[in-house]
């Protein structure tokens, strides 16, 4: 195991690929993305292969995940947002799978990289902005002008609203990335203690077990927060408040 707790975030190229001047190498990160894809697809498709009216345990879990996301969209963005359900569902399960797979020792946490989380949040941000303008035209800019404010106040408020709109993808991506990175770094540091302390390492080991439990909760919660915020932004784009 690497001594530096940050070494676990290193990107290692497994297969070097160059495609049209772009470095598309297959890395450890890509490998775990593929694992996440396979795990989710297997979970969703194999769990439903019987399509029974009275679901077994596996099928119940699949249905539960479906209804969790469906309710989340319906409650935050209304029923008009149901057409974006497959995207939000993919987003939620992908982040959740990446977060949880990162808990496995010696694995790699895809979501601990700002490049990945920012790409996802930027995609949501751009998509939501396009949906907003497509639905409301230039009327969408009303989002930046609070109603009933005096013109002088608007001069201050509009920049604030615009900035608050543009920092959404930043806070969205930073939150996920920071949570995953902090949790995993901490786990690695304590793991180092366990090894270096020998027999006395039982104390940090117990702490690590508790911390691992907490990390699982954080992994689930962060996936949920990311997707519910995407729903809230979608709600803004659809309903203009």
């Amino acid at each position, binding site marked *: 195991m690497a001594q530096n707790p*940050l070494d676990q975030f290193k990107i290692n190229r497994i297969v070097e690929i160059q495609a049209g001047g772009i*470095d*598309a190498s297959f890395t450890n990160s890509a490998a775990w993305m593929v694992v*996440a894809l396979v795990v989710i*697809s297997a979970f969703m498709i194999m769990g*439903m292969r019987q399509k029974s*009216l009275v679901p077994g345990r596996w099928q119940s879990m699949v249905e539960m995940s*479906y209804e969790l996301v469906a309710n989340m969209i319906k409650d935050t963005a209304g029923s008009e947002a149901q057409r974006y359900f497959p995207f939000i569902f993919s987003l939620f399960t992908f982040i959740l799978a990446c977060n949880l797979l990162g808990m496995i020792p010696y694995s790699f946490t895809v979501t601990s990289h700002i490049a990945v989380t920012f790409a996802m949040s930027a995609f949501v941000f751009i998509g939501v902005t396009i949906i907003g303008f497509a639905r409301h035209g230039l009327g969408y800019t009303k989002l930046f002008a609070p109603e009933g404010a005096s013109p002088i106040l608007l001069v201050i408020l509009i920049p604030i609203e615009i900035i608050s709109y543009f920092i959404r993808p930043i806070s969205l991506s930073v939150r996920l990335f920071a949570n995953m990175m902090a949790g995993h770094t901490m786990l690695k540091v304590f793991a180092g203690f366990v090894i270096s302390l020998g027999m006395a390492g039982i104390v940090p080991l117990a702490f690590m077990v508790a911390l691992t439990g907490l990390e699982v909760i954080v992994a689930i919660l962060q996936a949920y927060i990311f997707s519910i915020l995407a729903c809230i932004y979608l709600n803004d784009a659809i309903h203009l408040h």
Partner: protein
Amino acid sequence: MPQLEFADFAPQLVWLAITFGLLWILMARVALPRVSDVLLSREQRITNDLDAAERLNNEAQEALKAYETALAEARAKANALAVETRAKVQTEAEAAQAEAEARLAERAAEAEAQIQAARNEAMGNVREIASAAATGVVTQLLGDVPDDAALNAVLDAELANAGVN
């Protein structure tokens, strides 16, 4: 921090696009429609079953009502029949009793008449025997046949005294 290696951004983003895009397509085209199919058909089934249960329940209620009316009717009919039968039985019994009583009375009268006749006959014989005996006794005692008239008078008096006749 390895996260800030700009050279590593491109491969991550490329593979993110590939894997996430694939996941999106798989979920939208294959996985999610199946789940929603099952959920819909289950909801349909439950609603249908509940409707059927309610309908059957209503039918049961109606059947119960019909049963109760039928039962009440049958009971009323049975009551009427019972009353009628009892009346008929009583009349018949009374008639039979009256007939039997009449027959008995007739038979009693007949028997009485017979007894009377027998008695009268017997009484006639008594007089004869008494007369013969008295004649015999008088003849033995007096050696002389008694006077018929005197004998008859005594006999009549004695018989009247004994309460025969």
